[in-house]
């Protein structure tokens, strides 16, 4: 039978030195646990196939870091902010309503009350609903280790399903988003309306000047090993007039930038049909808010 240990460090420093001490052990960082705990319960219901090493569960909830702050240039979201905390936060509603919208469509109330944005990011599902908006908002992630902190752009952070550029013994502490003047929108397609994982999700950020696209950042989720920015579509859009037919045409070309798979939620074929549609809707909605 597998052995489990539990620690609840009271600060980031305590956490980092604890991780240093557990360098060779199997460690599970626990934030909201809404993805980890069901998987753990499933493992505990199955006939064990082989002896596994002890698992050290480290609860992050007492290390603080769950607030949302601002200065003149940026908004700083603590990685342990709950999804409900973000959904209800006035700074986010004011500056990044796209994130508020994405939170409202993520899982349901009872999950959002304990799930954290850091957990959603570090779980790095290609279908995660917080990641596509963060990609188009060009968010920066602050990673802290015992040596200090470094910052990495969201667009360079995700390597594959469940895999990121974080080092062992580093923690994602803050998500930094620069305040801007553009508008963004998020569209999600699931197998049902509520409490569902994305079959495809899309986010679009645009800046319009004199009826011309001055800037555009587009992202799609659940259509590749990670959520992806659609750089080719973006460059086709920039400098062009805001025109629904042109937007539709550019979005239809986005199939070249994605490679979805068949999985339990949907098929590659279906995702190729709907990804352009969801992206088009996201762009159109962002435009209507400019």
């Amino acid at each position, binding site marked *: *039978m597998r052995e489990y240990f539990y620690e609840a460090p009271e600060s980031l420093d305590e956490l980092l030195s604890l991780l240093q001490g557990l360098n060779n052990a199997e460690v599970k960082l626990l934030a909201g646990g809404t993805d980890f705990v069901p998987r753990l319960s499933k493992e505990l*219901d*199955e*006939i064990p196939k082989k002896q596994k090493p002890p698992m050290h569960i480290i609860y992050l909830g007492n290390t603080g870091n769950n607030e949302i702050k601002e200065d003149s240039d940026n908004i700083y979201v603590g990685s342990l902010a709950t999804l409900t905390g973000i959904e209800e936060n006035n700074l986010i509603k004011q500056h990044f309503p796209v994130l508020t919208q994405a939170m409202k469509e993520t899982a349901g109330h009872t999950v959002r009350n304990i799930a954290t944005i850091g957990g959603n990011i570090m779980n790095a599902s290609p279908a995660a609903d917080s990641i596509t908006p963060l990609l188009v908002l060009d968010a920066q992630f602050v990673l802290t280790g015992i040596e200090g902190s470094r910052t990495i752009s969201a667009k360079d952070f995700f390597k594959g399903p469940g895999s990121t550029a974080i080092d062992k013994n580093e923690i994602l502490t803050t998500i930094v988003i620069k305040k801007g003047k553009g508008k963004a929108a998020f569209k999600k397609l699931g197998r049902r309306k509520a409490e569902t994982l994305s079959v495809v999700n899309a986010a679009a950020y645009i800046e319009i000047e004199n009826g011309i696209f001055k800037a555009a950042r587009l992202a799609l989720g659940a259509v590749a090993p990670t959520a992806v920015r659609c750089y080719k579509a973006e460059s086709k859009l920039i400098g062009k007039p805001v025109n629904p037919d042109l937007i539709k045409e550019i979005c239809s070309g986005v199939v070249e930038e994605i490679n979805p798979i068949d999985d339990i939620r949907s098929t590659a074929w279906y995702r190729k049909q709907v990804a352009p549609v969801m992206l088009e809707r996201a762009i159109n909605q962002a435009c209507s808010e400019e």
Partner: protein
Amino acid sequence: MFKSVGKRVPRFDGIGHVTGKTVYPSDLTMPGMLVCKTLRNPYHCTRIHFIDTTEAEKVPGVHSVITHKDVPHNLFSMVPDHHVLAEDIARYKGQNIVAVAAVDKATALEALSKVKIEMEELPYVTDPVEAMIQSEGFEEVMLKKDLQKQIS
């Protein structure tokens, strides 16, 4: 005139439901209660060659490990051709083969992990038309006449 017709009559167990007082089987516990977990057929159609439960029985906290040999009357269901615990052939994925009674779930699962079992995956049929064509391999086809005989 009528006590119930045309009226909104509350359920007799409604208060129990809304207060969480209604008792369901999984809510029941009793002193000395054990947990049962089973080893299930992982394939759709399987020939079971042998089962060895000696190691499983030695796990501390295990009270009993049984196979079909320990079941006095191994048939159940409306048409009694279902085995309580599979005999030489298990006919569906998930069919119970070995059962363990232990002090808790983790112990029961640990015991099942120590059951030595040799299984051979057999070809399976899941289409009814195909099944009718292939029926020469199956001796247990029950005809209506046999059913009458069983009941009478």
